[in-house]
């Protein structure tokens, strides 16, 4: 385990990488954030970065707190939720699904089945508000990012980048291969739950038709207006 002072107000802890360190990191994050002088702890694939007020606690003391917390037995269970996320994999939304099919020599049905079969873990959110970094994708689908990122990827787009998959919660630039779109709003922006997904949650995707997509989109709009 490595501890680095990466700025005046941040210390980063790096673990040797294991694919399943996410649950441990989230448990450590939750314990650290209970301390009043810690502003926030941000989880990565194998890191936890602790932001604090350097005028209130020294780096030396902060490093001791992080070490002590990380060495405690993490018995606290993460109360993750399981989300069922509808995705329309139709080519009008999945603008790169043909590219993935060709690249992997797979039928449309097979791509959809491989993508909607696993239960994914939300390791952390980053890149943009509510953007989940998911682990658990079937590596048969692994496809490199686009050479040139798009200036605008529509809200709700579901994409693949290398061995990872994710969802764009709002319209933004992006280089992921887009294979579908969800009508679900990932950014409720409530103070206690700003994003639908949180680190430690799980996701299952299920395929829907274009008609179902439009119906669900209407329902989401009514829900969000209320």
């Amino acid at each position, binding site marked *: 385990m490595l501890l680095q002072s990466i700025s005046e107000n941040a210390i980063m802890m790096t673990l040797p990488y294991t694919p399943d360190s996410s649950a441990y990191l989230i448990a450590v994050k939750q314990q650290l954030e209970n301390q009043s002088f810690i502003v926030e702890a941000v989880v990565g694939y194998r890191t936890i*970065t602790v932001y604090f007020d350097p005028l209130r606690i020294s780096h030396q003391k902060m490093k001791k707190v992080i070490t002590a917390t990380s060495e405690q037995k993490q018995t606290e269970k993460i109360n993750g939720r399981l989300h069922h996320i509808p995705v329309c994999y139709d080519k009008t939304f999945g603008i790169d699904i043909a590219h993935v099919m060709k690249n992997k020599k797979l039928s449309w049905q097979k791509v959809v089945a491989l993508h909607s079969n696993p239960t994914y873990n939300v390791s952390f959110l980053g890149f943009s508000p509510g953007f989940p970094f998911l682990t658990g994708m079937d590596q048969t689908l692994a496809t490199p990012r686009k050479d040139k990122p798009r200036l605008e990827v529509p809200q709700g787009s579901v994409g693949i980048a290398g061995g990872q998959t994710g969802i764009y919660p709002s319209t933004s630039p992006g280089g992921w291969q887009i294979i579908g779109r969800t009508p679900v709003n990932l950014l409720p922006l409530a103070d206690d739950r700003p994003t639908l997904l949180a680190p430690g949650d799980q996701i299952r995707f299920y395929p829907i038709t274009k008609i179902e997509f439009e119906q669900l989109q209407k329902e989401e709009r009514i829900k969000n207006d209320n």
Partner: protein
Amino acid sequence: MTIEIIEEGLHTTIQDQGRLGYQSYGFSVSGPMDEFAAKMANILVNNDTDEAVIEMSFIGPTIKFHQHAIIAITGGNMSANLNDRPIPLAQPIQVKKDDILQFRTVKTGGFGYMAIKGGLDIPEILGSQSTVVRADVEGVLRGKLAVGDTIPFSHSCHTENQLHWGISHSLFNYIEQPEEVIRYLEGPQYDWFDSDRFEQTGWIASTQSNRMGYRLEGTPIKKRKDQQLLTEATTFGSIQVPPNGQPIILMADGQPTGGYPKIGQVVRVDLSKVSQLRPGQPFRLQKITADEAIVLLKSRERLIRTIQRFCQEKWGGIKLW
């Protein structure tokens, strides 16, 4: 009580201390690019240092006041004029109902700030009045301010006292007469790179620079060996090196996590200096230790408190209506 945007400028936004505690949900912290100038604007009108201010970038807006107000302007010089008469930086200024405040293209630095006495009266989104980036929200925090936007403020006030006092312009020498040296700390992947070259190279900020990041131009930095980074936290001032070797300094609207290795981290007290760099302006990077950076930060805090006490005393003797 409102002000109205008559001309929007290049990129005018509302910024308070930033959206703290939501990076784990993917939200940028945001906040002012030049935190020192923003705090000085607030202190000049006796606001809390973290009160929301109007941040203006390169070309300033034109603003109509619908009620009396007391304001202060700091940061890069945007040739502010009130009803076509030039007004000074770094002092409190009375504005009357129906006055027109106009800013032009910035002459020094890149970012200007305007504070209104009493602060802005807009609802917070996730604990902050800073503009929300990369999420679809409604209202004045949705993105840059546009023509026709009206921004409510908390108190209309005026005074019959003369406000012929301000703070020393030399506090803003980092904008007016910038030094060439920007100080930084070793980044988490410092030893991945040829760091001698990083310090010897003269750098300039390219024109492809904004509130998210400043792209630097200079001799590309080579990696010692081919390693890939797993996405981890990034912050305001992180110096990332993408595969082309041209560093990017992440700025106030930078994303909370990133996958490029980080050679360094600009020290907090020099972030204002970096923010006010003009495209093409040369600078060098110099490494210091975290302990040294914290000493600098503490002495900056003391300076801010001293100026704040001075302004509080001034305001103590002023009768407001």
